[in-house]
Structures are given as C-alpha cells and as structure tokens.
C-alpha cells in the first residue's frame, strides 16, 4: 500500500477527534467514534491478518451502536451546545495535543515498530481521549474518551503483539466499556425496587 494512503486514516482520526471536542451532539460524536474505529482497522490490518483486524472494527462499531441505542432509549436530552469560549478552549487544547503528537511521534518510533502515520494517529487518539476525559462529567463523553484512548493504544500495541486471545479480550474490554457507558446513561433517579 502506498505510504500516502496511510494519511487518509490519519485525517479521519484528526477530524473525528476534533469534532468530538467541538460539538456535544451525540449523533456526530458517535459518527466520529465510528470513523475512528475505521481508521484503527486500517492501521491494524497492515500488521495483523485482515480477519483478526476486523475484530477491532466490529467491536468498535458495536460499542458505538450500543451507546447510540442507549442514548435514544434513555431519552437523555441533548446537551446544550458549548459556549463559544468553551469551544475555543477545547480547540486550543486539541491543537496543543496535535502539536504534541506530531513532535513526540519520531522519538517514540525508535522503540515501537510502527510507521509515522500510525504512530501519530495513535498519539492523537490517546491525547484527545485524555483531554476529553479531563474536561467532562457527562457519562457519554467519558465513555467516548475512554474508547478513544483505548483505540489509540490498540493501534501501536497491534504492531507489537499479535494474539487471538489478546484481540478477543481487548474487544471484550471495548464492548464492556461501552456497555458500562450505556448502563450509566440508563440510570435514572427513580427508586430501585431492591
């Protein structure tokens, strides 16, 4: 595969993670996470057999579907759009993470055997995920932040280790995190019939 094609998923990752920071609309957020898992699949399929790499895509999209279904079922109101000052702050944070990812990637590639686009994508996802986690109390966004961080890690870890059991357990964790998010979304203040 030509080297330049690897920058397509990198663009997807950057666009998706910035849109997650920019908007509170859950439909866009879920779409962004779905795009990110497509990018993860793209990178992982270069080092793993395609059948094994597909586990990442299926687990990621299942996680997105579980969250989307849960948001609609719980009838949670759409969060208010963030104020323009908040958006500027988030965007500034996102740009800072991008700069950091691009500058740190060459050094980390010395000890983790992946190509530059995969490394930058991974660092962007981990950084944006952590940024998201540090700025929100909303259960959906916390879950999306965790999924972003985990998916970023999975890109570089796939280059290091190939294992069916590991792929299965990581997929289980991805779906487990999304189920936890869905469960949190479904919690209501009503009394529990213990």
């Amino acid at each position, binding site marked *: 595969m030509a080297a330049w094609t690897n920058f397509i998923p990198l663009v997807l990752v950057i666009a998706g993670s910035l849109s997650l920071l920019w908007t509170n609309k859950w439909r866009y957020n879920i779409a962004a996470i779905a795009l990110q898992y497509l990018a993860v699949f793209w990178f992982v399929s270069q080092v793993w057999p395609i059948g094994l790499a597909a586990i990442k895509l299926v687990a990621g999209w299942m996680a997105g579907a579980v969250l989307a279904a849960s948001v609609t079922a719980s009838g949670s109101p759409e969060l208010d759009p963030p104020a323009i000052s908040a958006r500027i702050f988030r965007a500034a944070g996102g740009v800072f993470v991008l700069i950091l990812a691009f500058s740190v990637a060459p050094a980390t590639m010395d000890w983790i055997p992946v190509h530059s686009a995969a490394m930058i994508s991974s660092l962007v996802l981990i950084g944006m995920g952590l940024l998201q986690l540090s700025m929100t109390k909303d259960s959906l966004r916390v879950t999306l932040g965790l999924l972003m961080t985990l998916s970023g890690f999975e890109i570089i870890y796939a280059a290091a280790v190939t294992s*069916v059991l590991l792929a299965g357990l990581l997929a289980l964790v991805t779906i487990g995190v999304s189920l936890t998010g869905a469960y949190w979304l479904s919690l209501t203040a009503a009394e529990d019939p213990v």
Partner: protein
Amino acid sequence: MSSPVIWIIIPAAMGLLLWFLRSRQPLSLILAAIVCFILSVLAAVVPIGEVVNLGGLSFTLPSTLPVLGRRFVLTAGDQMILVLLYGLGAVWFALAPMAWPHRLFPSFGLGMLAALTAALAVEPFLYAALLVETAVLFSIPILSPPGRQVGQGLQRYMIFQTLAVPAILFAGWLLGVAEANPADTAMFQRAGILLGLGFAFWLGVFPFYNWLPMMMAETHPFPAGYVLSLLPTAILLLGLDFINSIGFLGDSATLFYVVRIIGVLMVVTAGLWAAFQVNLARVFGYAVIFETGFALLAISLNTLSGWMLFAAAFLPRLMGLLVFAFALAVLENQGIPLTLEGIRGLAHRYPLTAFGLLAAVLSIGGFPLLAGLPVRLEIFEQLATISRTSLIGAGLGTAGFLFSGMHLLSELIHSDEQEWRMLENWPARVILISGCLLLLAFGLFPKTFFQSILFILQAFPQLF
C-alpha cells in the same frame, strides 16, 4: 477437571446462574456465600497437583488449564491466596442480607472474584491487565445500582482503572523485548516506569487517589467496601507476583526506594486528610489509601520480614474495613447522614454501631490492643533502621488517622440525651460485637492469627 476450572470457571458460571436468580435476593446471596465458603474450604484441604485418596477413589488435581495457546495456572503455592479471596467473598456475601441485600451483588460480586482469580492465574502475566479490567467492569453495577445516579468519583474510578490497562500491557511487551536484549537497560527502565504507572492507577496510589474518597461518598458503603477490600488485595498480590517473576524488579533498589516514598506520601496525606474530614464515607476512602500506603511500606523493605509483614497485614486490614463498612451500612440503611454532625450522640442510640465504627477506625490507625497495631509497630521498627524521614512521615500519618478516631469518639458520645437505647436489630448486634471482638483478639494474640496467612508467600518463592 483442573484447579482453574474449580476456582475460576465454576464461580464464573455460578455468577451467571445467580444472575437468573436475582429476583430472589436472600437465596442468591446465601448461595453465593455457600459457593465461596466451599471454594475456600476446598482450597484449604485439597492439595493441587498431588494424588488425593478419597475412600477408594484416587485422583490428581492438575494445576493448568490451557486456553487459546495461553495458560491459567493455580498451583499448590496459590492455595492460601484462594482461601483468602474466597473466604473474603463468603464473609461479605453472608453479611449482605443484613447490610445491602441488592439483587445485583451476588452475581457481579462472584464475577469479580472469578475475574481476579483468573488475573492471578493467567500466564503470561500481561493478560492479567485485561482480566482486572473485566473485574472492574463487573464492579460497576454493584457500585452504581439502578436508582443511584453516577457521580464523578465513580467515573474517575472507571477512568483510572481503564488507563492502567495500556500501561500494564505495554510494560509486559517491553519486558519481553528487554529480556531478549538484556544489554538495553533503557528498555528495562521504560518497562519499570510503565509497570509502576499501571499499578499506581490500579491501587489509587498518590497522586491518583482522589477518586477513592469521592466514590465512597457517592455509593452505598457496603458494596464500595467489598470492592475496595477485594480489588486492592488482588492487585497487591498481583504486584508481588510481578516482583517475584520479573527478576530485575526484585533486584532494583530504585524501585523499592520509589515505593517507600510513595507509601509514606500515601500514609501522610491519607492520615492528615482523614483528620480534617467530616464525612465518614470519605474517611473510609482515606482508610483504604492509608492501608495501601502501609502495604507499600512493607513491600519497600524488600526483606523476608518485610514480606511477612505485608502478608500479615491482610487480616487486620480486611477485618477493619469489613467492620467499618458494615457499621456505615447500618447507619446508611437507617437514613442517618454519614457525617460527624449526623452521628453526634449516636452512642446513646446505636451503641454497638458507634463502638464498631470506633474500633475499626482505631484499629486501622494502629491503636494499642487492636488488630492493626502489631503489624504497624513492626513496620515502624523496620523503617527506623533504613530511613528516619520515612518513619517520621508514617508516624505523622498515623497520628492524623488516630486523631480522626478521637474526633469520631468525641462526636459519638457528645449528647444531651440521658437515656441509653440499643436500636440496632439482633443480627447487626451479633455481627458488630463479633467484629469488635475479632479486632481485639487479632490485637491481643497476633501470632495465632497471622501464622496461617503467611502461607500466602508460598506463591512467591523468588522473593526470598
């Protein structure tokens, strides 16, 4: 049938079965307690890997279960750990009908136990990260049951526990790379840093522990007590397993120095924050941090006596947290606010609960004649020989924690009421009296209780 089938697959299957029986809370809780008790007794009496003669029947229990090219291994050395973990489960499930008879507790609680046992058994060890994460995911419905809004403390718990997964997995991979090229010391350093970071997230080590008191304040104290008793116990044992199996960790003086500094910081901060804390649920959170700090101090000694102290500390730690959580659950169930103001004069109405609270806090603080003191005293003595600064720090933290106990005492007895009543129900009375007596017995006859728990160290022969 192998040992992992008995102590991992069967409890996991029972957890699943109890999910279908969740509408019958007392039955499912009793079943969970019985299963844990049987597994604990089996771990104590059935030798793994040796020929067992049962009447005319003779069999050997294999220690290994292969799964997709990896192995789950529970050997004879792990048996005391199994006794401890399943014994812990049996006690908490047996007390749950009086404290928190929730329908989700037996199934998810057993699931947690099975996942943590699997984490301790899996080879190669890096898979443990994913199994601990599975246990954490099982703990979520227990900590935020339907009807209770999820708070920031619980979210942070989930975040920190999940962030540990990449750190531990990467560390495992780096260790493999480093072992292939032992001359590359930088790889060992990176692996050590990532491993440390992973354990720091898992254990709620300074400065990643702010979720602990926050989570305690948001959840019912009984399930939170269960999770915070079980999870750190299993993770500390996992940490010991890592030090045991990764040669360079055991030889690294820097590692034990860093562990000592972190342990002191945890003891000092937890003790001081507890001294000024007015919310008792948060004090429980600080108690967990305080205990973890002392466990790290015992590890940092890196001597045979240090490892023995580490193992011996499990019983008073778990007993103190159990009595503390049960007493808080009694108050929570009565709708009494878990604050110092809320419990003012409580000794006049709930004397045994008040006594239980006080005994637990003072035992954790290391008050004379109570369970916590013998181990604390020995750790202080050992610390005095290697670092006076650490000793002063640990002493300061202990003083802070004991001060919170004294503060609690003054609030519990401060009342204008002349009349004394005993509003606890009979089962609660029996449990609280038994708990307090055990805390006292541990303190008075430490050797009697500690000798058996030291067998835990059989699982880690490379340590000494």
